């Protein structure tokens, strides 16, 4: 089975600081929805940024779909992996549609840079907007949206980018429970219907086990444990790294694991 994303002895270090990251070795199978958990400063965002080649590892190799990311051009890479950040702001009044269209950048040839109006681009943009339910406010300025609306637009931009791998960094951190649920179900649907591979950093241990197929637990720049949500969430390592106890429950309907405050 192909890996969507794989790490081979990946190390990273910020400048001359002694805090080291890694070595990390592991793979995420194509078509799986993996949650990345761990306390603040564990290295979740660093792992995502390394996976999108925004940071370059000091040692080791990262591959997207079995091709080393270091050998890709920016547009080759951007056609394989997209990133949904926790939030994004701009001083300029781009409309929602213009932001979503930016997701197409790596698909434009020189002529389309002046007029990206081909059918394929139009379709990719409108499908992405429909899937995320942002069509209704497509002409509004992006900077005037609420947190929940903005987050759906950022997902729409990633969908317009049309990559087989998506990296999400705390995508529901600013969303209310209703919007958070819709967002996570949308991502789950992308994995099941379109066979996308997703790696999502997430804080809420009551929710993450309900949606993800597997979890990676990080602490101090290391991946301590990987496995299905039942195994990882029931490990004693969880209480150690978060420095708090949890109540273990399984969801009354789906019987999936949830951790709550004691």
């Amino acid at each position, binding site marked *: 089975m192909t890996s969507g994303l794989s790490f081979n002895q990946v190390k990273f270090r910020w*400048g001359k600081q002694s805090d080291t990251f890694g070595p990390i070795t592991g793979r995420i199978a194509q078509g799986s929805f993996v949650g990345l958990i761990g306390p603040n400063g564990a290295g979740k965002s660093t792992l995502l940024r390394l996976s*999108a*080649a*925004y940071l370059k590892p000091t040692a080791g190799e990262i591959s997207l779909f079995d091709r080393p990311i270091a050998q890709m*051009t*920016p*547009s080759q*890479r*951007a*056609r394989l*992996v*997209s*990133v949904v*950040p926790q939030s*994004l702001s*701009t*001083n*300029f*009044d*781009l*409309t929602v549609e*213009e*932001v979503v269209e*930016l*997701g197409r*950048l*790596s698909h*434009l040839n*020189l002529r389309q*840079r*002046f*007029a*990206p109006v081909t059918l394929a681009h139009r379709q990719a943009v409108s499908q992405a907007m429909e899937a995320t339910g942002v069509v209704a406010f497509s002409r509004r*300025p992006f900077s*005037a949206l609420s947190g929940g609306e903005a987050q759906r637009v950022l997902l729409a*931009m990633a969908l317009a*980018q049309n990559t087989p791998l998506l990296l999400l960094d705390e995508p529901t951190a600013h969303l209310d429970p209703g919007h958070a649920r819709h967002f996570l179900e949308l991502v789950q649907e992308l994995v099941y219907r379109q066979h996308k591979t997703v790696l999502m950093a997430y804080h809420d241990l009551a929710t993450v086990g309900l949606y993800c197929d597997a979890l990676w637990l990080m602490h101090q720049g290391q991946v301590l444990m990987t496995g299905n949500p039942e195994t990882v969430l029931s490990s004693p390592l969880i209480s150690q790294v978060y420095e708090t106890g949890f109540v273990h429950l399984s969801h009354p309907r789906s019987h999936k694991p949830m951790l709550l405050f004691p």
Partner: protein
Amino acid sequence: MRRVGFATWLGVLTLFLVASIIIGVLYGPTPIPLMQVVAILFHPTASINSVIIWQIRLPRVAAAALVGGALAISGAVMQALLKNPLADPYIVGASAGAGLGAILAQDFFPALGLVGPSAFIGSVAAVGLSYGLARGKGRIQMLTLILAGYAVGIILSAVGTFLMLLNRENLSTIFAWEIGGIHGMTWGRLWVPALLILLGSMAIWPFSPDMNAFLLGDEQAHHIGVAVERVQFFLLLAASLLTAAAVYLSGLIGFVGLVVPHVVRRLSGPQHRRLLPLAFIAGATFLVIADTLAEHFPGIGTLPVGLITAFLGGPYFLYLLNRQNRRAVGGM
């Protein structure tokens, strides 16, 4: 509604530009009737009026148009790179570098007429220095670039002021140059910077989608496939060459590079594919009009064009900000 009218705005602004050029060559010490001006523009003759228009007035008007266009494009590029709507072409040290270059040329080689070329070199060198300082290891931070440019600007200005005080006889020349003005323009002086401005502007245009992406921040631009550092370097280089070419022709003309991209964004939206060509034409029109007004100011005679752009641009910019604030407070 404002986003659909690109072709319309292109047509309207081009008409304005043509009209402003005709007005620009119409005025002068020798009165030439409008119809004759138009006829000569389309069919140059050997008459004295034709020489006045083609050899004296038109080079000056063309220079004003090119300077205005170059500053508007350069301003739009800096605003996108720095993600700051208040950035202008001079923000990362270009003006101070140009100023020092002009002072050095005036002080040490006054006979050679090297003020323009020396200002050109000073301008590009100052931006290069700011870039070099801001670029630590790895990725360049745009905030660091602004701060480095600010520091470089202060240091170079201080050196310039010091030299000016040592050589007080040059004060008025340098002062006139720092306010900006287009004097004694000839085709011979114009063609090299003109080529640089036209080619530079055309080279920037294909990077419109990348500039749109920069509006979302450098990290997101990376994620959607922009070769962030290479594109930033190229755009900064191209914008500083445009600015330096403008400075070479006219000294330091303020406000065009700041205000014109703003006004055009209101017409066409922030997409650079539309913004850049419209900004070039609008900047050209604005400066041709300002220069004509400066050259033949009613009741006074000749004023520096930089003074006119500041007079026109400053209050208009305040008006825009005020309108924008009211819109924001009123919830759109």
